[in-house]
């Protein structure tokens, strides 16, 4: 387990990348749990490299104009909008 120890700093860094502002208690809990969970994921080291069959089909289609959401519908779920646009946080 000691090899897999996760530091609180790493949890904070990842939370920063994921844009989630964790509180201190969460950082503490996640630090412990992540150590255990990532240690379990280490079992993947035993997996042999395997060729992946690619049976991909091209699903591209020509661009064509068709009906979509109206501007009003697209904005309907935005907490704030103004003049037909999304409104973000005010930068001070």
């Amino acid at each position, binding site marked *: 387990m000691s090899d897999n120890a996760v530091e609180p700093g*790493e*949890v904070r860094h*990842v*939370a*920063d*990348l*994921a*844009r*989630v*502002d*964790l*509180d201190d208690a*969460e950082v503490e809990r*996640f630090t412990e*749990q*992540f150590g*255990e*969970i*990532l240690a*379990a*994921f280490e*079992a*993947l*080291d*035993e*997996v*042999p*490299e*395997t*060729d*992946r*069959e690619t049976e991909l089909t091209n*699903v591209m289609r020509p661009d064509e104009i068709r009906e979509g*959401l109206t501007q009003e*519908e*697209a904005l*309907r*779920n*935005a*907490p*704030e909008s103004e003049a037909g646009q*999304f*409104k*973000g*946080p*005010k*930068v*001070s």
Partner: protein
Amino acid sequence: MTDYNGYIATETIEGDDDGPLAGRTVAVKDNISTEGVRTTCGSEMLEDYVPPYDATVVSRLKAAGATIPGKTNMDEFGMGTTTETSAFGAVENPVAEGRVPGGSSGGSAAVVAAGDADMALGSDTGGSIRCPAAFCGVVGIKPTYGLVSRYGLVAYANSLEQIGPIAPTVEEAAELLDVIAGPDERDGTTREAPAAGEEYAEAADGDVDGLSIGVPTELVEGADEAVVETFWDAIADLESRGATYHEVDLPSVEHAVEAYYVIAMSEASSNLARFDGVRYGKSGGYDGNWNESFANAREEGFGEEVKRRVLLGTYALSAGYHDKYYKKAQDARAWVKRDFDEALSDADVLASPTMPVPPMERGESLDDPLTMYLADANTTPVNLANLPAISVPAGETSEGLPVGLQLVGPAFDEETIIRAGSALA
């Protein structure tokens, strides 16, 4: 509403006057978009989200004459095995008091088991239809990847998840599959089933004479004793009707659950990035640095399991760890797929217990995420291999707890698992 908290909303959506599902109610999991009707994904983040369009499966339900009696409770964003992580409260198992209904489509299975809906739709990313079907004593089908459109399903892990039916019997589940299956121009991952033409419901004739069943020892060995006993009784039942079984070896499945979680969490970390409180999602009303205000909104809007998975996914994809976790998980996925294809070249279906344990007591697994993840060992390999699978009631433990039997078939061969499953339910 129900005393076991199966519905998040009970706003009725009426379908057309006639069609194959006329006069029947089909409850819909709350991560499937319904035009004009709130769709929350069990999350505070989407508490007030009202989709401007219907998911393709919902359009097809309406056209088939079904009435949608409500949107069902679920683990937040489909992340859970117990339906205890919903922001709208946990669901109780209506057929096993004090126990969880399984997850994440726990509300869908519960309303069917309790008789509050004739049928229901769930979504299955790593077992989220089959697990609650098994725990609630009903039937659930996870279709082959690409058989059912995901247009309008709020994405958790796109490469793994499928919408599928939950019903009291295999025949009714197959009827619902008949309505929702088929290509959709709005979802480029859908395909015409090679054997299209036969109706799935017609395959539910209970005829298992000559059926060859492979039993992967790896998926039976680790299971709870009471579950294993019920499982073998069900196999004996199938044998008495002319089926035969042999044991098969699937060495790759020992690593499937870890591979599943790495892939699902990685995809989740990307999919859930859109919930920033500006375009949609709950806004904390913060001003100042954009990244900080998003981070505040997401801290408030997401529950703990969602944060755990988004962070672990971000971790697995971050510089320095991509090859260690994500790439290895993709290797495991290819290995699982090959193993299943080989086993199915020698058997019509593969059978195992759906869940290695009977329904857990409520609250039991919340503090121990790793133990909860490991409970998905029998269902996750099927999603990695993109195959179809059904969970049918196999009987009960001596304590009266439901046990599910899982049957896995070749890609797009839903008929065979439906036929085999219909011999039991």
